[in-house]
């Protein structure tokens, strides 16, 4: 009977195109508006590395002003000092760990026809690649030994490799950056986790990634200052680069990979002991307040999904409900107009349950049509958002899972809207209708 009900539903839609069109439009408008905001919310709040998001931790130490927290309520700084980060990164207490900060450098392609490019990269440890798993197009990461040896090696992004080497396999080639020569050891494939969870402080979570990656230890000679957020609650003790490195200014991020709860507890003990040790040297004046946040907690802590986005999703859902109320009215008019048909079917042997199933199927078909048109509206809506807010363009896309979600929401919504009209249709007294036909 299900096939028969679908066949009847399709016929009825075709036979009353205006009323059907109005109902589909009402559902589609609601679905379009809801999916536009939900798609953005979904991308922003999604898990960027689901298979290990509970193993990767952002590490924070509270070295801040004893009188005033870094941010309320009693939050430690989002990054840490150079010396703390370097010590913890090189202590090797976790399976993987990396300190990192963003730098800007002039890349000078070997081809004289290409002008030098001002590019943004990341100084980090080789563990970065094992932890965050960027895919490699060519070559591989540098090694821990090369970290220790301060090797002049570089990993390029796919985009940078295309600009500088025309997309060829550049592994082993030399690249001049600022005043130094670097050997390309690897080229990443496209690497766009959404949001870019490992650096929410210095990059747009939904913007472009890094052009290159250099060993953190090279900074001993490069003496780079961060191209990103730098916060100090007291001035550096001396106006020199070493003074800056020894200061309480925070500008380096630290991430670790801890594969079990036991490892997480041990690492917490380790950083607490480290801070207690530093307190004995007059640092860390605030009470112990060190944090290990896994990826999803870190995204939540940093408010990647802002309140406006949540409100938009709520409002669009309310709009969907309003559209559904309109649909209820239209369905009621449509179903009750067919009271005669219901009565004939009842007389010919249809039970109330069968009438209910037939009309709910029709509601579901309206929901399917509404979802398809609604997805077109959502795609248009997201295109408008892309135009108005290019910085979040990366999260303004629909994917098959969102399409399926839209279909589910639309069908459920249409079924919900159809319940009352269908119930009314089932309650029609056939005897009275048959006589007045």
């Amino acid at each position, binding site marked *: *009977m299900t096939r*028969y009900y679908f066949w009847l539903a399709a*016929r*009825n839609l075709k*036979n009353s195109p205006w009323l059907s069109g109005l109902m589909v439009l009402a559902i589609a408008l609601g679905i379009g508006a809801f999916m536009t905001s939900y798609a953005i919310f979904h991308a922003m709040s999604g898990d960027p590395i689901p298979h290990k998001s509970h193993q990767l931790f952002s590490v924070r130490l509270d070295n801040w002003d004893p009188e005033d927290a870094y941010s309320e309520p009693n939050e430690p700084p989002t990054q840490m000092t150079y010396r703390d980060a370097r010590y913890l990164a090189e202590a090797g207490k976790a399976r993987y760990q990396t300190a990192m900060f963003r730098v800007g450098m002039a890349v000078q392609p070997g081809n004289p026809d290409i002008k030098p490019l001002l590019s943004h990269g990341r100084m980090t440890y080789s563990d970065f690649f094992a932890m965050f798993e960027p895919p490699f197009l060519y070559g591989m990461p540098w090694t821990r030994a090369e970290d220790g040896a301060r090797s002049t090696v570089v990993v390029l992004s796919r985009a940078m490799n295309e600009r500088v080497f025309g997309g060829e396999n550049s592994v082993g080639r030399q690249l001049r950056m600022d005043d130094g020569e670097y050997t390309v050891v690897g080229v990443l494939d496209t690497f766009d986790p959404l949001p870019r969870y490992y650096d929410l402080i210095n990059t747009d979570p939904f913007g472009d990634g890094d052009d290159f990656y250099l060993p953190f230890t090279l900074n001993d000679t490069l003496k780079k200052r961060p191209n990103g957020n730098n916060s100090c609650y007291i001035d550096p003790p001396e106006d020199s680069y070493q003074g800056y490195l020894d200061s309480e200014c925070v500008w380096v991020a630290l991430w670790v990979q801890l594969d079990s709860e036991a490892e997480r507890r041990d690492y917490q003990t380790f950083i607490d002991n480290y801070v207690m040790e530093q307190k004995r040297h007059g640092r860390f004046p605030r009470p112990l307040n060190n944090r290990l946040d896994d990826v999803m907690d870190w995204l939540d802590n940093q408010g990647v999904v802002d309140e406006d986005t949540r409100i938009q999703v709520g409002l669009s859902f309310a709009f969907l409900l309003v559209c559904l109320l309109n649909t209820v009215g239209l369905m009621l008019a449509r179903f009750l107009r067919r009271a*005669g*048909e219901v*009565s*004939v*079917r*009842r*007389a*010919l*042997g*249809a*039970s*109330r*349950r*069968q009438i209910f199933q037939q009309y709910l199927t029709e509601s579901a078909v309206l929901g399917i049509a509404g979802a398809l048109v609604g997805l077109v509206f959502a795609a248009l809506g997201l295109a408008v958002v892309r135009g108005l807010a290019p910085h979040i363009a990366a999260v303004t896309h629909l994917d098959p899972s969102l399409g399926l979600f839209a279909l589910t929401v639309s069908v459920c919504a249409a079924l919900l809207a159809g319940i009352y009209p269908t119930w009314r249709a089932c309650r029609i*007294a*056939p*005897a009275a209708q*048959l*006589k*007045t*036909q």
Partner: protein
Amino acid sequence: MLSMQDLSKVYRTHLVETHALREFSIHVEEGEFVAVTGPSGSGKTTFMNIAGLLEEHSGGRYQLDGVEVSGLSDRERSAMRNEKLGFIFQGFNLIPDLNLFDNVDVPLRYRGFGAKERKLRIERALEQVGLGSRARHYPAELSGGQQQRVAIARALAGEPRILLADEPTGNLDSAMARAVMEILEGINAAGTTIIMVTHDPELAARARRNVHIIDGQVTDLQSSFADSALGVSAPRESAA
């Protein structure tokens, strides 16, 4: 086949109580052709609705094909309606959006027949009423008489035990009415029990038995077996 004993039907509103049928008793045997007559408002249609399981009675007993219908669920009543009863209405009551084939198909769908069986029955029923070649036409493309023949085909396709016809010729001119009546007589001759409500004494006279209803009661049952010019004989049975 159909037996009602002391049946009553009361319609109640918060202001008024209307007795549509009271102490209504009738017994119809298998193969009978019964004409039900009576003035407007006498309870003929209420009787047909209750007989057709489209309404529930308020009191008394009603047995259809040996089954007491009181207390049956909607599903059971619907199944019984589908399997044992066929309906022909004054207004034809075809579904305008469906062609003749699909209209006749409706009760067969609810019976659960397979596609082959349904096709066979639909074609046979339409042939039987002389509309086999117009299966893909829509009701609006047919005359009133042709539409009523489709309704008869729809009722016949499921091979019901009883055909309930509520003024089946009421909307037809006399020629078409005669044609429909001839079809009904043929159906009855083939063994199907027919109960027909009519205002037309000429049609009533062609039935094998007449039942007269006044004020919700059977007042007069007559047999066409009697040799009356109108086919009406002396009263044989009266309601209690």
